């Protein structure tokens, strides 16, 4: 019940944003702008989709942006030293499982809280990226790589957008319709109950952290392809944006609650709101401030309303 009304509110907010944007910014409704809007944040939004599962599982992964940076740098570095691009892509994608496994072992097996582990790894993985590229910028990727990141793939829609749609649907089904998704929710609600029901808590958590890191690595490759070059600071600070998207989507930071529809709506709201503000020439820190207010008010508003209604 409560979740439904949350998504209702988000849908309303989304429409509001669309209408306001369309009225205030004539360029808003152009196809190119709509594509740009997704493409500019594609890495964040696909990671946010997985992060939703992680947070519903009552964990958090702060290291994703560093894994993204590391994968991008591995790719850039390998191409730079002359490795063939397809191989470099594979190696960069492999960063995901490796990083995820390190996180997962420390979290699910050793039993250190994920916030602690991934906070340390946020520094650590970024550091490894830095070792690889140092103060350099590595680019000159083959044309097909940058085309994949920048040009349309099947019509005007770029690959990244297709990926977003596929992941949104896929992860939505995974979360809401499969046994694995149910396990994620139950563990997020109460891990002990899950254990006493015979679920393999460690395995589910391991899978989730592997998924998060793998998605981050994919994000890294997309990032490299989109920008055509990488540096050691690729993706710095993305984690806060990603978490904002998930939380605005109604996912409880305490786990157990949240829906993919909410997260997708929240992503749409944030992307469109930012885009609309940019098109009306609102500068960076005000944009950030508005998102900050939105985040607080979206939770505060319903709470206050509930109180008023109860008297």
């Amino acid at each position, binding site marked *: 019940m409560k979740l439904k009304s949350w998504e209702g509110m988000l849908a309303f907010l989304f429409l509001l944003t669309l209408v306001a944007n369309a009225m205030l910014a004539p360029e808003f409704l152009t196809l190119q702008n709509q594509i740009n809007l997704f493409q500019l944040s594609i890495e964040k939004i696909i990671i946010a989709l997985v992060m939703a599962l992680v947070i519903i599982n009552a964990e958090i992964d702060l290291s994703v942006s560093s894994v993204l940076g590391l994968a991008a740098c591995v790719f850039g570095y390998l191409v730079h030293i002359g490795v063939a691009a397809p191989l470099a892509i594979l190696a960069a994608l492999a960063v995901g499982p490796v990083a995820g496994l390190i996180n997962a072992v420390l979290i699910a097996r050793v039993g250190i809280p994920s916030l602690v582990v991934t906070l340390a790894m946020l520094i650590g993985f970024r550091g490894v990226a830095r070792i690889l590229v140092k103060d350099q910028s590595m680019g000159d990727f083959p044309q097909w790589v940058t085309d994949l990141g920048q040009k349309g793939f099947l019509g005007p829609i770029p690959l990244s957008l297709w990926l977003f749609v596929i992941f949104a649907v896929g992860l939505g089904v995974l979360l809401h319709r499969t046994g694995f998704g149910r396990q994620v929710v139950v563990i997020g609600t109460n891990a002990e109950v899950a254990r006493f029901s015979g679920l393999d808590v460690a395995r589910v958590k391991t899978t989730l952290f592997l998924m998060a890191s793998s998605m981050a690595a994919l994000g890294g490759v997309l990032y490299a392809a989109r920008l055509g*070059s990488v540096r050691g600071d690729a993706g710095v600070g993305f984690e806060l944006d990603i978490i904002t998207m998930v939380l605005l989507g109604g996912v409880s930071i305490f786990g157990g609650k949240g829906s993919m529809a909410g997260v997708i709506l929240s992503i749409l709201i944030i992307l469109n709101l930012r885009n609309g503000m940019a098109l009306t020439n609102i500068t960076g820190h005000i944009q950030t401030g508005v998102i900050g207010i939105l985040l607080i008010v979206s939770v505060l508003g319903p709470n206050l309303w509930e109180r008023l209604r109860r008297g």
Partner: protein
Amino acid sequence: KATPGQAVNMVLLPKFLGILPFDQADRGAQEAAKELGSTGTYQYIGPTPENSAAGQIEMLTTATTQKQNVVMLSNNAGDQIAAVAEAAQAAGTKVVTWDSPIPSGKGESLFVAQVDFGSIGTVMADMVMSMTGGAGEFAVLSASPDAANQNAWIEAMKKVLAEDAKYKDLKLVDVVYGNDQSEESYNKALGLVDKYPDLKVIMAPTTVGIVAAAKAMQDEGLCEKVKVSGLGLPAEMVSYTMNGCAPEFALWSFVDLGYLTTYTSYLLATGAIKGEVGETFTAGRMGDFTIEADPGREGAKRVLMGPFTVYNKDNVEAASK
């Protein structure tokens, strides 16, 4: 040569908002826009410091969507912005860089260079030279490993050091980064003096780093032993120059840089200049300039502003007012 009163929509896009040099550039740009009587719009927008690179890429894309005529970019995203800049050019939005160029030159119409990047290497080397008395160890405290202009200057300095025999007794022992944050720069400066007991100069080609380093040396009573130099704002450096912690540093006028960039961009957007090597134009109060090949970046073109001022005890107080 400029025809005033035409409609040119311009965006001045700094690395990020919140530090003085960029606001000064904004002032210069506004002055120029007024002088030119541009009937188009002028926007000064920028990303937040923590979101600088991604934010710039987003803002350049948005400007392209808006069909702005020119985006004046102090690039902080390195070559990562090249693809977006090329897209902008293709859509008819000119990209003129200033302060910090696109390293590969891709997607960039012109670079309005504050100084000659090669000569700043010489100047930095010379300042080290005069402070060490010709021989000794020194280290560089830079902004971040990803700052293209700083990297270019350090590169240029290394080159001069290697090529010119008169610097043969200077030894660059380390390059560290303070990420343009006071506390990090301060700690890194102290780290340097601890790590290299014979260190004589800290060269900080960044306005945040140089004050932080100067304060660190002053706090630890090391000003006699380790001198600080680099690029700094006179207003922030005056006390350290007067007390000898940072006897010499250099800078150029960001107001002028903003002014010149706006003039150049206006001319480019109105078609008064094509942006070809060899073209000359007049930029209001600043006089005549010529477009030339950028010696540091193959295939790229620049407009050289220059000169810069070296500040010391004699002129810093006047400049800080």
